[in-house]
């Protein structure tokens, strides 16, 4: 009897703990505020208390990684909108999250290889730029950029599907100890087997991005080294050009230790010395700091131009609009550019930002806009819009690249 009594007491105590901790509904659910057929809202109402954003790693910082970099806390205090961030590793992941996340997500910082897919799929809604006071401060090169400005209703005026956030270039990240005073100048260190300046082979010590869009990096390399292929746009590849790029990636598979998906895991791998050179983002270079450096190699680089886009079923549209306005604040733009190593979408952010410094924007490449091959989703019609099918469409990029990572040669079929 005594034992059962004690057991009873314990069970009661456990139940009490559960009840005491109870309550709270964790958010979620909730009906969408916007209807796909409705025009965008015309005024910003009462903030809903939170906003859910899908973003790249390092894009939305609340000071928890480094107290100096915080563009969330003040916004939360000012508007009462709690910012919840879901980090995604690739554009494909962003698209998947947005499509599967009806009623969950408000915003996404989509690159050009995701934005058109989102618009086409009816996953995002047009944004009423009249409600964004800072719209006029946006870089003119970005205001009407084709990756977020589309005339979907066919009335002759294009709709804006979001506000530009940041842009920049992918870089070749390397370990300075390994390369010493012979820093790499070409992407060949990640595509061709060679002996690195430290006397050891690069085999097993390099990484490659695990997103299918990386096929374009291979195409970019071939554009410089195999002119006979006639590659112009690395995102518009004929079958022959595409196969050559895949062959290069198959060859690269032998050299790659791991493919990186998560920026933080890549940072960890470089810190542990598991990897010494890789295609990367300026963000990782910044976080890694001393002992690591990056370069935009002679072949040029792919890059991204990101747009903050709004889900058609955004559960918190008012907070979403407030965040879009906040995201164009020169201080936010400058701090972010310094943190991520990117270029602000608002040129005035380049001046007087303590973290970015006077030359920050130039260093991060504000003058290279025309040299960067921005990510965009490959289409069968080579972007001619004529319904032709000379180019390899994106879904084949995905299946082929997955096969390459799995150690196969999808072209040769072995």
């Amino acid at each position, binding site marked *: 009897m005594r034992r059962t009594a004690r057991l009873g007491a314990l069970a009661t105590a456990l139940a009490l703990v559960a009840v005491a901790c109870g309550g709270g509904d964790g958010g979620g659910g909730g009906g969408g505020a916007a209807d796909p057929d409705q025009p965008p809202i015309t005024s910003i109402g009462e903030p809903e208390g939170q906003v859910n954003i899908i973003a790249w790693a390092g894009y939305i910082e609340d000071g928890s990684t480094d107290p100096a970099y915080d563009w969330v806390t003040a916004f939360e205090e000012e508007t009462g909108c709690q910012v919840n961030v879901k980090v995604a590793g690739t554009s494909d*992941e962003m698209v998947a999250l947005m499509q599967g996340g009806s009623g969950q997500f408000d915003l996404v910082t989509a690159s050009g290889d995701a934005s058109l897919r989102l618009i086409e799929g009816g996953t995002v809604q047009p944004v009423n730029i009249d409600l964004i006071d800072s719209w006029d401060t946006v870089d003119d090169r970005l205001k009407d950029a084709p990756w977020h400005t589309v005339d979907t209703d066919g009335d002759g005026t294009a709709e804006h599907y979001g506000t530009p956030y940041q842009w920049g270039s992918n870089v070749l990240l390397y370990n300075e100890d390994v390369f010493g005073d012979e820093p790499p100048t070409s992407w060949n260190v990640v595509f061709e087997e060679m002996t690195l300046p430290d006397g050891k082979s690069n085999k097993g010590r390099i990484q490659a991005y695990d997103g299918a869009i990386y096929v374009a990096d291979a195409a970019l390399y071939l554009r410089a080294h195999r002119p006979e292929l006639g590659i112009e746009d690395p995102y518009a590849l004929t079958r022959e050009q595409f196969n050559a790029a895949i062959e290069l990636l198959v060859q690269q598979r032998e050299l790659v230790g791991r493919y990186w998906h998560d920026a933080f895991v890549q940072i960890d791998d470089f810190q542990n010395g598991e990897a010494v050179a890789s295609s990367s983002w300026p963000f990782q270079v910044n976080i890694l700091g001393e002992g690591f450096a990056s370069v935009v190699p002679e072949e040029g680089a792919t890059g991204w131009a990101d747009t903050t886009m709004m889900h058609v079923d955004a559960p918190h549209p008012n907070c979403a609009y407030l965040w879009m306005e906040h995201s164009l604040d020169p201080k936010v733009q400058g701090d972010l550019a310094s943190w991520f190593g990117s270029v602000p979408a608002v040129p005035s952010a380049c001046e007087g930002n303590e973290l970015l410094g006077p030359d920050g924007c130039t260093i991060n490449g504000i003058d290279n806009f025309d040299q960067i091959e921005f990510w965009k989703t490959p289409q069968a019609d080579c972007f001619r819009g004529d319904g032709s099918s000379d180019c390899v469409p994106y879904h084949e990029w995905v299946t082929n690249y997955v096969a390459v990572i799995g150690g196969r040669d999808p072209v040769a079929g072995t």
Partner: protein
Amino acid sequence: MVVSEAPPRAASGPGRRVGAVLFRHPALRLALMLLPAVLWLGGLYIGSLGILLTYSLYRLQEFTGLVVRDVGLSTYALLWQPANREIVVRTVAMAASVTVACAVLAFPVAYYMARYATLRMRTLLYLVVIMPLWSSYLVRSIAWRAILAGEGLLPWVLDRLGLDGLLRLALQAPLVGGPSLVQSKLSLFIVFTYLWLPFMILPVHAALERVPGSLLEASADMGARPRTTFRRVVLPLAKPGVVAGSIFTFSLTLGDFILPQIFGTSEFFLGQMVYTQVGVAGNLPLGAAFTFVAMAIMLVYLGAARRAGAFEAL
């Protein structure tokens, strides 16, 4: 045995009356007792699997990545691509090796607990075995990164012992090797084995515990050598436990999508492929189809396990 000291009293009060009524109507009582489980497992769970099955018959619109709700087998056809077939083979091979390793490692502990440990020792060992289940699976996994990394604990220890050549040799081995320990299948195998080991020890222990000591003594009395007793008496009796444990180790390896992201050579495994298709590529139909491969493998396995009497030992 625990026996309540309270003497049986005549039924009184509404609760008791309901209890008494139910005990007089066994069919009603049985139905009520079964109802929640039948609704939950037969309705919700099986229903969900049915919905998943329909999703696997849909396909993906290729540019927008939206699901097209036309029923067909085109998604399953994709599974036959060599790269996808290889994922299945690779995963099953990993699951099988992890299972064997877990069984080998679990046996001494389970046997010691069941046969030799005092009650106090057994309670302690039991706690020792389940304790790791209480500590974050993720953090234990990255603890292994700190152990296996180039400047981590294991290379440090091996270096001190002058055994670092052994490590290099292992990394050069075909199939399991790789450029470094963390970036090899070997590390994936070690960490999987480590993580699922308690799930093997507990059922093996439960099975061995049912072996009466007298049976072993009888075997010895009849002149069997310890080795013979072990092979002829202990092992067959432990078998249902091992099979039960192997269900967990196998199924947990098949479904894990986190470890292959942290360890190994970036080659895909089944669970990771499902996760990638659903979470990264947004291809729910293909993810669902892969899920049914995993299910088919486990169902075959379960069928075999059931014949081996494993369900009694779960």
